[in-house]
């Protein structure tokens, strides 16, 4: 937007929303919304507590393990589906069902299968993230131009080199887009999993603060979580832009 002849960056409007939050919070009109400033103070104090640190570590651990599995399995299955029609036909319907299914309904099942603990959360993260990675990888592999593969073959690339040096790199923009969307979904997965399991990590703290009506700490938790999710998404987007230059000329 342009204001008085100056370009005001898009994200600057978030400051406006923060000010609105502060004003609403200070007015005391809504009990559940404390002023942003006191939430930030609470957040600052919170990150220094051992409770928060261990909760964050548990959460981060479940998230990274689940995401690592989702990325590995997602790319592998996506490549297979993109290259082999039989695999595509076999798994296509399931991937398309699960990518938009209400997976929150599966968490209770996971809880009885994997116990009320970290494993359930890891599996939840995996299930939330993996399908979109599969779909985007598959699309990327299918968009690799045939001439590029024929070029590799005609210059005598071994199948290994063909995949490592041509197919995967050519599909990289889509794969990265899939991973970014997968990360966003994975964060939702870790939160939903921990809320339902509710005895570990962030879920436990959410439960604790919301039961004791400790709004400052509740919002502090939320803000840290949102900020972490945004930062991660922005980081991947940054990498994506770096590879985008060749997506256009493929």
């Amino acid at each position: 937007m342009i204001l008085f002849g100056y370009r005001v960056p898009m994200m600057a409007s978030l400051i406006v929303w923060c000010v609105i939050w502060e004003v609403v919070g200070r007015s005391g009109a809504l009990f559940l919304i404390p002023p942003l400033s006191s939430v930030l103070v609470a957040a600052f104090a919170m990150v220094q507590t051992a409770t928060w640190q261990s909760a964050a570590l548990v959460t981060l651990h479940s998230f990274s393990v689940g995401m690592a599995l989702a990325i590995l399995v997602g790319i592998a299955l996506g490549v297979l589906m993109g290259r082999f029609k039989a695999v595509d036909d076999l798994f296509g319907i399931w991937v398309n069902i699960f990518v938009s299914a209400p997976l929150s309904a599966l968490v209770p099942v996971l809880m009885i299968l994997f116990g009320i603990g970290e494993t359930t959360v890891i599996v939840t993260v995996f299930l939330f993230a993996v399908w979109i990675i599969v779909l985007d990888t598959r699309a990327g592999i299918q968009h690799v131009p045939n001439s590029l593969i024929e070029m590799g073959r005609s210059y005598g690339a071994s199948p290994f080199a063909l995949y490592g040096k041509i197919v995967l790199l050519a599909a990289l923009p889509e794969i990265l887009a899939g991973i970014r969307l997968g990360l966003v979904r994975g964060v939702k997965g870790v939160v939903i999993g921990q809320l339902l399991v509710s005895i570990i990590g962030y879920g436990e703290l959410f439960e604790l603060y919301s039961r004791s009506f400790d709004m400052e700490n509740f919002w502090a938790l939320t803000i840290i979580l949102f900020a972490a999710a945004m930062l991660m998404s922005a980081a991947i987007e940054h990498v994506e832009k770096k590879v985008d230059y060749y997506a256009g000329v493929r």
Partner: protein
Amino acid sequence: MIAPSRVGGPAPAVHPPEGLGASLGRLASRHPVVWRLSSLVLFFLAWEIAGRVPISYAFPTFSATLVALVSMMADGSLFVAYGSTLQPLVIGIAISGVVGVVLGIVMGLSRMAEWLAAPLFVVLQAAPMAALIPLITFVYGIGLLAKTLAVIMLALPVIVLNGYKAVRNANPSLVAMCRSFQGTKLQQIAKIIVPDASPVIFAGLRLGLAAGFIGVILAELLITPTGIGDLITYHRSVANYAEMYAAVVSIILVSTLTLAALESFETRLLRPEKRRG
């Protein structure tokens, strides 16, 4: 784009020749239904075997789950549950749909609205909104209102963002065409921008509905057990695992069928270029 890229037709050029029996392959490529059916059958077979081993005391066979599903339909408990689950979902999606599409279009048309609201919705879309569900329980209690709000919170951002992006990226050549024939601003919006944006707006509605399903189930599991959430929680507590699995399968089935129906409706209504024949 936020919509997951679902690439319909496989690109034939990339697929190497099949190694799986030429005649079977030909049959399947002529009848994609054959593949889908065999894919379903294989999955259910694997489930049945895993249940018979059993891999866990809490893992019923596919046949037992199917029997439970039929009996829950027969005694009507499943339908009663859906009666209460679908209420907040339908109300929430209707509200998010109307508000989200209008807001998205306004943001796409007005630079001021875009500047003010787009970053907010980008944050809300990427953030795990589920974390706020415990909060609404306090304020709005445990009734229909709280659950409807949960649905709106999860569904609204993606609907708004898709509408906004679709309108913002409306084909500039078509807009110029409308201007060159002296179309008014209103005609430009009604006859060019909105029709051009409608496929992506619809994709947003589908994504919103999918998010709404997640939201309503989460609300039913977290806030108070009602509807399908109640069936899942109750049968789990009394160790009726087959019934519990049947409830979970049914909600995945219902959401998948609803989304597929919406997609085919969209194709018929809005996308002549995707229609067959």
